């Protein structure tokens, strides 16, 4: 096994599971639709809340996607094989996260213009929202992968993952929504975006290692 063949196989599996990705997307759209439908559909209500709604829905969709990331690999023994492959486990995990990130976030970004229109997100906020998603979601994935790795060997671990990682998600969500809101009312938001990037970098450095340790603990 090489890093490249691992990545190829990952992508293939993701492709075979495209319906899951599609479902995550549907879920995302439905959560977002819930607000105008269930609460209030007036622009005055939606416009200021739009970024927050989109981010909450994105967080949930990402959680669903990340949570089961290692489950199948654990069951069929592929995870064991990764551990004994002699390749760097953190790097393998990073590759896996990257693949997953592409598959989940890209479609999300693509339908974003639609959704932001539906929620009356002002133009001024749109590009900042896209930026926050680009810069912020990597940390969501990187944090999530730690939780997923810790719970592979546990049945019904999905919930546990979320318990473990949602507290760590809060700063990301807060910085992101603050940035969009700041942009909407014309305040500077560059600092907040920088904070988001810093968080992503921080977790880029530490989370593969933590996840690798967790995976090793789980496969025995």
């Amino acid at each position, binding site marked *: 096994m090489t890093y490249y*063949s691992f990545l*190829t196989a990952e992508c293939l599996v993701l492709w075979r599971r495209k319906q899951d990705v599609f479902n995550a997307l549907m879920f995302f759209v439905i959560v977002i639709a819930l607000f105008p439908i269930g609460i209030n559909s007036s622009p005055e209500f939606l416009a200021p809340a739009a970024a927050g709604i989109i981010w909450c829905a994105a967080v949930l969709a990402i959680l669903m996607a990340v949570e089961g990331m290692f489950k199948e690999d654990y*069951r*069929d023994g*592929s995870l064991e*094989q990764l551990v*004994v492959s002699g390749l760097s486990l953190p790097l393998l995990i990073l590759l896996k996260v990257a693949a997953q990130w592409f598959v989940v976030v890209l479609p999300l970004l693509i339908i974003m213009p639609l959704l932001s229109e539906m929620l009356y997100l002002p133009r001024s906020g749109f590009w900042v929202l896209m930026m926050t998603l680009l810069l912020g979601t990597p940390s969501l994935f990187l944090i999530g992968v730690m939780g997923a790795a810790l719970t592979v060997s546990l049945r019904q671990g999905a919930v546990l993952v979320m318990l473990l990682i949602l507290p760590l998600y809060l700063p990301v969500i807060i910085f992101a929504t603050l940035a969009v809101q700041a942009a909407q009312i014309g305040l500077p938001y560059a600092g907040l975006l920088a904070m988001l990037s810093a968080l992503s970098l921080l977790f880029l450095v530490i989370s593969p290692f933590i996840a690798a340790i967790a995976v090793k603990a789980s496969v025995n």
Partner: protein
Amino acid sequence: MQPSASLAISDLWIERGDRDLCKGLAFTLQAGEVVRILGENGAGKSSLLKVIAGILSPLEGKIVYSGEDVTLDRSTLQQDSLYIGHSVGVKGLLTVEENIRCYYPSIAASRLASVLAALGLDDQSDALVKTLSAGQMRRVALARLWLSDKTLWLLDEPFASLDATGVALAEEQIKQHILSGGLVILTTHQDVLSFSYRDVVLLS
């Protein structure tokens, strides 16, 4: 494939749950040898293989591979070994061919085809593995024996759910491997093996 590799295990002690396994176990393995781990159900055969493969850590003991002490860090051993456990490590959602390509990305198509033909999987190379029978799934995992360039093979009941032809094929492959100087540790509840081997008995 490393020439004249060797594995030496001494004073082992594995703990699983609250059971002590393999207490005081010691054996060595030279190039070209096969060790069959023998023991009742629950004696600790699988646990022993996992310890050697680096999936579990022993409580005590020493594992020396080709002169290097790998007890604490099994990574050099892992570079050079092939482990197939009870769960065989093939992905249900990939096809037979993709599963093998995952482990051996640069393998030539003709080589792959010949291995699949040898295993009797040629007309199912595009089937998703989850639709295969138990024995066929095992064969997909065993395809790695044909393709591997690793020295140390750790096989946990490799013949399980194989039919007679399948067993003969796998045995032939193991024979080839030890002829070319490989090391094999395997567990099996099968009596007759067609190659010469040494037994290591685990008491439970």
